């Protein structure tokens, strides 16, 4: 992830020619692990023809599930972009007892099997909540579960950029009379923006496809709290593999479009940074 940020800070990449063997291996591997399976999903989704594809993705229940999924994913991005940056800031700029512990804890949502994450959240924020907060089986619960599993993305992309950020610039700005807010707005934030966008893009893509963390806590009521991945699971269980592939392809398309959009934003932000 830090390589994404590093690349953003070095717009002119040094390209070497040669290494066709390593290129071949990389591409072969990429094809086997990513491209081929994706192509298979797309291929499968077309099995019922264009009309079948359309019927699958325009079924009212599918539309409701997709709307909820995309809306919540944008919510996740909004919250994580702010809170992830804040956490990264605290981890880099502040010193406090147990900081290295907190730093290690950030990645745990990645290590926890997502179904366990769902179960844990349910125990904490469900009907028997020991802290008196019952969010289970609501749209808010979906948001909560996705916030949990996507937290590390923004923190881990922003952190290395903050570490490398030249503090002389901030001090210079301060000595010229800029307030703390102005220094952040005009010096720090523009430098962090590409990394925030990268992290947000990853968080979005993950939120769109997440299944395990959501399936227990959402309640899965069609037209209400059922997300796209759970809807797709239902299609598979009903032996409608083509329909499942069609809805998946639409999810992929949405993710892809948002990733490209955020990528373009990031390049724009990088240009304005230098």
């Amino acid at each position, binding site marked *: 992830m830090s390589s994404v940020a590093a690349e953003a800070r070095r717009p002119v990449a040094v390209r070497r020619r040669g290494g066709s063997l390593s290129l071949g291996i990389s591409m072969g591997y990429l094809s086997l692990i990513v491209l081929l399976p994706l192509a298979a999903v797309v291929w499968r989704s077309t099995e019922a023809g264009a009309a079948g594809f359309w019927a699958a993705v325009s079924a009212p229940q599918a539309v409701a599930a997709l709307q909820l999924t995309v809306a919540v994913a944008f919510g996740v991005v909004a919250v994580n972009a702010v809170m992830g940056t804040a956490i990264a800031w605290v981890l880099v700029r502040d010193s406090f007892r147990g900081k290295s512990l907190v730093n290690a804890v950030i990645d745990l949502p990645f290590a926890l099997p997502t179904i366990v994450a769902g179960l844990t959240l349910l125990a904490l924020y469900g009907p028997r909540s020991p802290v008196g907060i019952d969010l289970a089986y609501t749209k808010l619960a979906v948001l909560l579960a996705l916030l949990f599993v996507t937290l590390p993305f923004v923190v881990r992309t922003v952190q290395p950029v903050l570490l490398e950020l030249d503090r002389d610039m901030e001090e210079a700005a301060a000595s010229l009379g800029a307030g703390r807010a102005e220094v952040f707005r005009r010096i720090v934030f523009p430098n962090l923006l590409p990394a925030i966008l990268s992290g947000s893009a990853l968080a979005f893509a993950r939120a769109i496809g997440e299944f395990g963390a959501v399936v*227990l806590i959402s*309640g899965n009521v069609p037209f209400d709290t059922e997300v796209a991945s759970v809807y797709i699971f239902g299609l598979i269980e009903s032996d409608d593999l083509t329909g499942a592939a069609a809805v998946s392809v639409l999810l992929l398309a949405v993710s892809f479009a948002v990733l490209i959009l955020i990528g373009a934003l990031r390049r724009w932000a990088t240009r304005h940074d230098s």
Partner: protein
Amino acid sequence: MTRVALLLSVLLVAALAAAGRAALHAADEELTLVAYSTPRETYGELVRLFAGTPAGRDVAFGESYGSSGEQSRAVVGGLPADVVAFSLAPDMTRLVDAGLVAEDWADGRHAGMVTHSVVVLVVRAGNPKRIRGWDDLVRPDVEVLTPNPFSSGGARWNVMAAYGAKREEGASHEEAVAFLEALFRNVSVQDKSARESLQTFAGGKGDVLIAYENEAILARDKGEPLEYVLPERTILIENPVAVTAESEHRAKAEAFVRFLRSAPAQRVFADAGYRPVLRSVAREAAFETPAGLFTIEDVGGWDEVQERFFDRETGIMADVQRRIGESR
């Protein structure tokens, strides 16, 4: 550098292939049981018991458990299996259609089944909402849980139990479907499997859980503060088992299935809360038989029910969910 890496990876692949072949060779000697996950502990015990019988000596077992539909699809997808056990017949039909189980699997004395159960209404200890039967589930003050019938094959038993109970009472098809709609309006959580639904209920959500009797018995025996109501009219759940057509250990696999239907094995099932298919053990176990017990055949049989109720686009339940969704 790259050549060393290449050489290493070639060696690694060769090593993996050799290990894979060794594992496959070991598997030659054993029966693979692919089953749905609810009776997991029970099958574990039965496998041990089978080893103590003359037919079961020297038979090793590989066991795979998962949701019934997933297991069935996995076998169609190539998961090797000698014996398959599912929670409902359509998962077996899928294997018949794929040529993996003989067409006549349901012939014979127990019609291909190994255990029975019934659909019951699980309530909180003391039955605070005074649930007596299906009609109570559509009361405005009652919150109902059931797994989603589209993601849980087993939940289809629940839907057909409610529908069939109404029909047995003399309701028309339309009235029974209207009842299903009223019932699902009261459903607040539709988990993806029966087991998860039970966990949600145990976690404090809902007033009534529609579930299988064996699951209710298991939960109660584990000390969950719940009890269950046997409705006057409900459906008989039938769980199929079969030997696969391409089993390389057919004689042993058939011996195991015969063992599953023998008195000692049926007693183990009965102790775990299942209704035995073997009459003599069923009499010993003394499960209460509801007056209005009906079977899936009484509501049209699985082939008809699957298409009429559970087709994703045109099925009656798809319509019901859609109408409820539109009014939300």
